[in-house]
């Protein structure tokens, strides 16, 4: 932790001194994440690019006033969410209605996978396949990742927001709740639905 802080302090000093390499390092580290987070609030990739650019400018303009009460990362992402949220409200009308709604009940696994009645009611009719014996390349391959990305892109908005921040960006549950202004329970339910759909899609792909 201390090492991270020391590295960050050094980076901050260099940035305040106007060193391009320091800015470049920061951009390498956070730009794709910033874009991804911006995309959770605004509907077009072009607008997300604008939000990201505005964010970097705000970071540069605010760097002298950054007091280190939070980490640099937390501070940067607070800027992104603020800018993106404002922009998102401005183009809220362009978000299709269907993606605002949430389905009511969505089982994690199709109900017909379980025995309906009898002694084994509610137990697997046949077991899910083992994935721990699949070749590693299959799981980490570009095609697998592209499919997962496509599933996430098609999720209802709040599910997409939660799974992106939690599982792609690795935010803590509390950080996600505060960025999206949702309760912890709500966050967990949305995460469960989103992860379940990713699992289902992987099942369809990996076992075909």
């Amino acid at each position, binding site marked *: 932790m201390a090492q991270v802080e020391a590295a960050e302090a050094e980076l901050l000093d260099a940035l305040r001194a106007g060193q391009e390499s320091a800015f470049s390092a920061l951009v390498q580290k956070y730009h794709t994440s910033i874009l991804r987070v911006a995309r959770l609030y605004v509907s077009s990739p072009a607008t997300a690019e604008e939000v990201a650019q505005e964010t970097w*400018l705000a970071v540069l303009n605010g760097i002298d006033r950054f007091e280190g009460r939070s980490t640099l990362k937390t501070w940067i992402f607070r800027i992104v969410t603020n800018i993106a949220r404002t922009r998102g409200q401005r183009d809220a009308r362009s978000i299709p209605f269907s993606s605002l709604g949430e389905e009511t009940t969505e089982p*994690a696994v199709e109900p017909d996978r*379980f025995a309906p009645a009898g002694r084994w009611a*509610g137990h697997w009719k046949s077991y899910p396949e*083992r994935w721990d014996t699949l070749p590693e390349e299959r*799981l980490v391959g570009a095609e697998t990742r592209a499919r997962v990305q496509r599933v996430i892109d098609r999720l209802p908005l709040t599910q997409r927001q939660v799974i992106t921040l939690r599982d792609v960006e690795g935010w803590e549950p509390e950080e996600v709740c505060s960025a999206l202004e949702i309760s912890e329970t709500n966050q*967990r339910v949305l995460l469960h639905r989103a992860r379940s759909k990713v699992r289902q899609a992987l099942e369809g792909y990996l076992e075909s």
Partner: protein
Amino acid sequence: MLISEDLTCRELVELVTEYLEGTLPPSDRDRFEQHVILCDGCAFHLDQMRTAVAVTGSLSEESITPEAQETLLRVFRDWKSG
């Protein structure tokens, strides 16, 4: 085959995220773990969910495009000279 009678597989799959998040009350967590020990189907399902989370996590390994990098360096130079 021994499967815990009070928690079905169909119920268990809805508790996986709470289990992984560590938010199940201790008594429910015990029932969950007992079930998974005795039921291969649920053990495989749990592993599939963990795998799904790991694959999703790998989406962050994406790097910035050279064009975006260029644009931002221009932003920086303008800012510095501005």
